[in-house]
């Protein structure tokens, strides 16, 4: 028990709900479907071994893998779509604004990036998604959206011959420079997603370790723990008595302003 006292002796933390369980579930559905898409996609791009021996008429490895790729894609699209809808609702505290690259968000993200990179300045405590993370999630979502579009542009001409979807997808594919270019985009953007996810995971672990706010449990259990001392100006709210009306999202975000440290109440 000795180690417990090395950092933050006596620091009081408050459990702060950051996500609905629904949002957590969607995150992991999205994660699993993207992993499945990446793995099956890798096979489709480099089918270096063949699975299942036998006559071609009775073996369907590539067909099956493509099937799972498409299946995972529907999961991915559905969860992305549901999450997008929830971003406008209370159950996800209407967080759409936190993900959009608005000038304010970008400005805050730059400041935050500077802090993360150098350690200079005070650490801003964001209850939900911080502007830098929001920007990253925006980029990942946008990349996923590109994957959905290019995926459909390849899927529709192949799987829906003779329909309006076919000619529709075909026109768009050709205006982009042909199916081969669509394929190239689909392939390269996957690397972009891998890189962004890598950074995302690293940043979560890093924040979890450096700021001791339990960021990791936020995506699993839906809460974080904030040091009471450092979110002093919310103390009356976080402290003993609950305020009638919860603070607005803007108020939460502006928690990045330097706050004078106080003794924890109680």
């Amino acid at each position: 028990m000795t180690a417990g006292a090395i950092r933050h002796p006596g620091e009081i933390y408050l459990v702060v709900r950051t996500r609905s369980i629904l949002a957590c579930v969607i995150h992991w559905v999205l994660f699993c479907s993207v992993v499945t898409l990446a793995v099956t996609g890798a096979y489709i791009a480099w089918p270096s071994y063949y699975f299942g021996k036998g006559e071609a008429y009775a073996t369907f490895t590539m067909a099956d893998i493509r099937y799972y790729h498409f299946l995972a894609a529907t999961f991915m699209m559905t969860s992305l779509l549901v999450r997008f809808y929830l971003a406008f609702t209370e159950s996800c505290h209407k967080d759409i604004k936190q993900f959009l690259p608005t000038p304010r968000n970008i400005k805050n993200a730059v400041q935050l990036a500077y802090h993360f990179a150098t350690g200079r300045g005070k650490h801003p405590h964001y209850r939900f998604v911080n502007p830098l993370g929001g920007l990253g999630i925006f980029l990942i979502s946008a990349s996923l959206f590109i994957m959905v579009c290019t995926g459909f542009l390849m899927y529709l001409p192949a799987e829906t011959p003779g329909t309006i979807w076919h000619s529709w997808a075909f026109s768009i594919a050709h205006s982009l420079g042909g199916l081969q270019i669509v394929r190239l985009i689909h392939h390269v953007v996957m690397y972009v997603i891998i890189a962004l996810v890598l950074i995302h995971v690293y940043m979560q672990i890093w924040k979890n370790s450096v700021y001791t706010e339990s960021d990791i449990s936020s995506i699993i259990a839906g809460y974080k723990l904030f040091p009471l001392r450092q979110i002093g100006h919310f103390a009356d709210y976080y402290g003993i008595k609950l305020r009638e009306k919860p603070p607005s999202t803007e108020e939460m975000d502006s928690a990045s302003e330097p706050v004078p440290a106080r003794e924890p109440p109680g």
Partner: protein
Amino acid sequence: MAVREISPQKKVLVYTRNFTNRLIHWATFFSVLVLMITGYYIGEPTAVYGQGEAYNQFIMADIRYYHFLAAMVLDVSLMIWFYLAFMSLHHRYWKEMLPLPGTIKGAAEVAKSYLTFKKPPFYAHFDPFDGLLFMVLILFMVMQMLTGFQLYVQALPADYWWSELIHVTTDWVSALLGGSQHVRLVHHIMQWIMVAGIIIHVYLQIAKTIIWQDGHIGQIVGGYKFRDVE
């Protein structure tokens, strides 16, 4: 709305796992993952076919190589883990994992808490229920090591000191189980049991994180969790 709710509970941060401890956990995790995947191929080699001339194809050889490599990582991390269980400056946990009367009682209490949702006493490192589960998992890992070495040594040149050492330390396993084919069988079956154990372990950590709001799962990443302020 649920998401806006902020718990009035006050918590205090507690360091529960030092860096070495966490590192060992993840080394164990990744090596077991690799062992499971490569082991699946070795047990079910028709899963992947190599193409081309046999003299130029090394799929099974490569996969066995990574299996052994991962096993080495696991062996080393387990050894360090055992050493620290008795010698750690931070937390000597060997007692917490033995089925002593106190541990069993605590474990029963924790098990009850899962059913009644009544929060058990705070355990900084792991609760007695986990302790017993870890003991089981560790025992399985040790058995996998023993059976694994026994299988491994069959392919080693006999006049090699290293193989002599393995023979001396693990031949009794073969004798006990009744021949190398049974060793293989046990190695295979125990893996499936371990998979079940790992699933239970992961589930419990997530459940505890959600129910008790102690940031429990974060401790294996950041090294800390939280304790209620009385």
